[in-house]
């Protein structure tokens, strides 16, 4: 259940990391967000609050 990141749009601003309601997003070595922990509630905040619309979340496999 990955985050789908448009690397051309993402500015590595970290808003998704800041806002994630379950504290599961971090930036990887290239500065792009990924789910470090498998605890997504699919609240949609990361996608909604991304200032560049660079991010799409996929639903966890077990619930989709």
């Amino acid at each position, binding site marked *: 259940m990955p985050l789908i990141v448009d690397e051309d749009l*993402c*500015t*590595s*601003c*970290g808003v998704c*990391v*800041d*806002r*994630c*309601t*379950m*504290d599961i997003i*971090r*930036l990887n*070595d*290239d*500065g792009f967000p990924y789910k*470090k*922990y*498998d*605890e*997504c*509630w*699919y*609240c*949609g*905040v990361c996608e*909604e*609050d991304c*200032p560049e619309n660079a991010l799409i*979340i996929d*639903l*966890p496999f*077990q*619930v*989709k």
Partner: protein
Amino acid sequence: MIVIIIKIKLTKFITKNLYLNINLQIMSFIETKTKVGELMNLETDILVIGGGSAGTMAAIVAKEQNPDSDVVIIEKGEINRSGSIAMGMDALNIVVQPGITTPELYMNSARIATEGILDYKPSFVMAERSYSMLKRLEGWGIRFPRDDENKYISLQVHAKGSFLIEMDSPELKLVLAEKVKEAGVRVINRTIVTKLLVDRGQVNGAMGFNLRTGEFVVCKAKATILANGGCARFSLPNSGYLYGTFDYPGNAGDGYSLAYQAGAQLTGFEYTNCSPLIKDINCPLLYITLTRGAEVVNALGETIDLEYVSTQNMLKELREGRGPIFIKMNHLPEERIQEIERILFTVERPIQKKFWENRGIDFREGLIELGETEYQLCGGHGLTGIVVNEKTETTLKGLYAAGDVACVPLQHLTGAFVFGEVAAEEAVKFASNNDLGEVDQNLIKNEEQRLLNVMDNNKSGSISVQDFEYKVRRTISDYAIPPKNEIKLKRFLWWLPRFRDDMKDIQVTDHHELSRYEEIQFILDSAELSVHASLAREESRWGWFHHRTDYPEKDDANWLKHVVLEKGLKSGEVQTLLVDIENGGEH
């Protein structure tokens, strides 16, 4: 103390690499502080634990009441999007509009919905203050749509009276966070509270840690408001996915456990409740669709009779083998479908849009299968919480409780806001007459040491926090939810000390995992309280939610009472008391 907020405006002209470097530095700074041991020492007038609907309202109103008082919110997430309404809500469920409905009428409805387990005063106060709360929110820019006659759009989901008022507010939580900031409230994000500071029955603040940096946080306070939600992570969701819960899974019973361990009284823990929501994903849609003409049909094609929106009737269909049940909308006009889609896909859980696209289902044709959510404990959707009076006072001096953590049955979002307001008023009054209480430094040292010990001892544990939680919650599913009986409930009590002992085998490698470890303790405490309450209530009540196979009947003659729980002063065990219902269940 001065809070410095650094805000870097993003512009498209700054190169991406610059951002990247800045942010990587911030991130690596965050990640390298990997030990509890750093200390943040705070003092405040009013500490609010939990920055969701109730907590933000409490903090804002406290500053309104006394701009000179210092107010701190400690929030486990981040205040802009924390709590159960991260993505807004579609309605205020309980609003008594002057001239249209009355608090008394609401009380009639609520008493039916709770089967009489309802104290008069808190619920009445909520109803009474609900309209001014709507006006407050409207004043802050929250939209409450009106019809052609310029009346708020209301819908009937209660037995008597249309109390539900439509609200169009995807940005509700952002607005609240902005108001918090404007008011000058100090916000400590990403910090889980693990213990209240208590001295001789008075609460003097709380302790916890930052779940990214591990910084140990101690906050002394003249008054403390618990507003950190119910227990959404109770039994196992059907999907097996631990976080696929109806309510926000950050709510792990934190407040129940904190209050219980501090010595407060709690009640309504026997009412383990669930809802029929979208199967697998557990997102809500009942009120939104059913109030707009949708029907519920069972596997035999029969329309389920819903006098009003009774989830119990639907769950019965599932239990009695007439499942699956579905929401059917293909008879609705196109504009109604679009209205439903607009609400469902923009507010509360907008991810639904993606879900239905992926499933290839269009409401115009396809049926929406409903499934039973996990069971939860909650003051908002249920009857569970810390004992409070109409002033949000708990049984501990200096401790107030508002929102899902407090037992004002079925209070929904309205209750969170109204009692956030009330808690602020009361806490400000209390704080103005009190100094910072005494704090035993050993309490603080012991809590810090306990957390340090877990980080040290659980590094190479053999069980992941998720595997552990799975077994705990599966065991809750096996023994602590309906159909209940004495033997099942006692089987859970057999497991409890084993689980607590087995926690030494959980692997904890960072402070994020430490926070999940702490949450498992909250879940276990919540389950212990629930099982004791369920054992105590030797009857069945609130339909299926406290159905005991060994006492299958409701017994009003003997059991129109609260089962109240508290920690035994000497035994350290759960004590149960039977307490009469305020106004004898009548008014």
